[in-house]
């Protein structure tokens, strides 16, 4: 049985009572679809690394002109001067 409230808490999502049932059913359904990976014998591929980063594509750190602060702040809900405002956290 999936603890949907715990998952929602970890994902910082508020979910209603109705959604609790809905998402529990949905997730059960999806998990039954993906459960087949448990049967996969991964001994044959152990030790292989995931897509390694191609070092050719790494660039040197260079100081470049940044985005315009005012432009970036245009998308924030609330701001004061050069800063974004958020509710008190303590």
């Amino acid at each position, binding site marked *: 049985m999936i603890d949907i409230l715990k*998952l929602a808490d970890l*994902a910082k999502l508020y*979910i209603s009572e109705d959604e609790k049932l809905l998402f529990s059913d*949905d997730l059960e359904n999806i998990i039954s679809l993906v459960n*087949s*990976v448990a049967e996969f014998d991964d001994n044959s591929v152990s030790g292989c690394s995931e897509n390694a980063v*191609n070092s050719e594509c790494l660039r040197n750190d260079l100081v470049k002109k940044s985005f315009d602060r005012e432009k970036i702040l245009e998308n924030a809900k609330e701001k004061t001067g050069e800063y974004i405002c958020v509710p008190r*956290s303590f």
Partner: protein
Amino acid sequence: MFREAFEENDMDGISKMSLKDISTSLAEKRLSSVELTEYYINKAMNYESDTGIYITECFESAVKKAAEVDKMRMNGTELSVLAGIPFGVKDNICTKNIKTTCASRMLENYLPSYNAHVIDRLSDSVILGKTNMDEFGMGCGCENSYFKKIRNPINDDYVCGGSSGGSAAGTARGFFSFALGSDTGGSVRLPSAFCGVCGMRPTYGRVSRNGLIAFASSMDQIGPIAPNIYDLALVMNEISGWDSGDFTSSKTAVPDFTDKIEHGVKNMKIALITELNSKVSEESLKSVIDSAVCFEMAGAKVDEIILPSLKYALAAYYIISSAETSSNLERYDGVKFGYSSEKYNTLDEMYRHTRAEGFGREVKRRILMGTFVLSREHCDMYYEKALSVRRCIKREFESIFNEYDCILAPASIDGAYKIGENKEISDIYSEDLLNVPASLAGIPSVVLPVGKRKNGMPTAVQIIGKPFDEKTILRAAHALEGELNFEKCL
């Protein structure tokens, strides 16, 4: 003043022109970009009802841009092959000062302060609008947009496919000359197959993802949609190449994808994958067999082979993509940009309510699923296993490509399904079955229509290739397109 090639009222002349023809007409000044742009705008505006293709129309700025390009052309400025040509842009590709919503309430009013790299590469082409999609790219039918639904251009009762549904349906309706989409688990290929147009998922790293709003970063890839294969190759020429803004983009040399595209498939070795063919309807299977016969008649050798790990591909895809979703979408918290809830007292409540109100059901479902597979109790059982499956599939593809030039496969289980069809979540996810193997392996795949089903909807096949060998699959697809001379559904 430029339109020597067209009669006064014969605007349909444009709809019959390929991208190559349009490019030539513009270059030879027999057609102006303004005339072309106005033609497409009128076509969209003459529909009685909203087709749902655009989330944001940029018609006014498009005409201005077209006029600028015309002026540059008259002044003799060197321009690109696609200069002055109007196109559609999926609404998850950032466009400076044009809303980029990802079809989500979360980004309903988001105005990017920069262009995606591909938009800069197409800087002398004309953006007609931002096209509708499944929210954040999550869906197979384009039924998950926050704003509006799109119907299939061939039959209103059917979905247009997702998630790049607006780009595919718009191309099929002739609303623009070509479009950009993005493909994570088939989001360019499936709508192209459902709408009867051509679509390509390039090799991971071939086209920069800089400015593409992330869904599952290890598989997201921008790709073109166009009416025919040659046109796809033309767009690929313009959008491919290394970008310092995307460290996963590749420095592999970019060839001219149109070069030798007409050379056919003589002596090409093509594989059919048994496990994929066994999953599809009779009609979808027939389209693959007919295509294989065409290839053989054109001089290719076709063999049936097996890909043993394929049975785990769909599960691995949904585990990895959900995991990456839950991580990528953490940034939407109502602080720096995007939707922000009014219902809160504390910062934590603001996060939770913002995300609950800003995301749609499918996005929440994938975030929860991703949180589940990444949790301490389940990470080894699901996420680590899925990564192993991915490595194995990649290895099996490598082994196939040691012997074969490309793979021919069906593009959809049974074509487009009906809007609102009551399907289980797992049935909807299974629509991706044929497309996720190439996504997991990061290899290119091109989809093209090859005929019509009994219900009038298109059938399509895909051709999958070696990493960075888009040229070969475009050549094979071009040959198939010519051999079949398929009946156009529209």
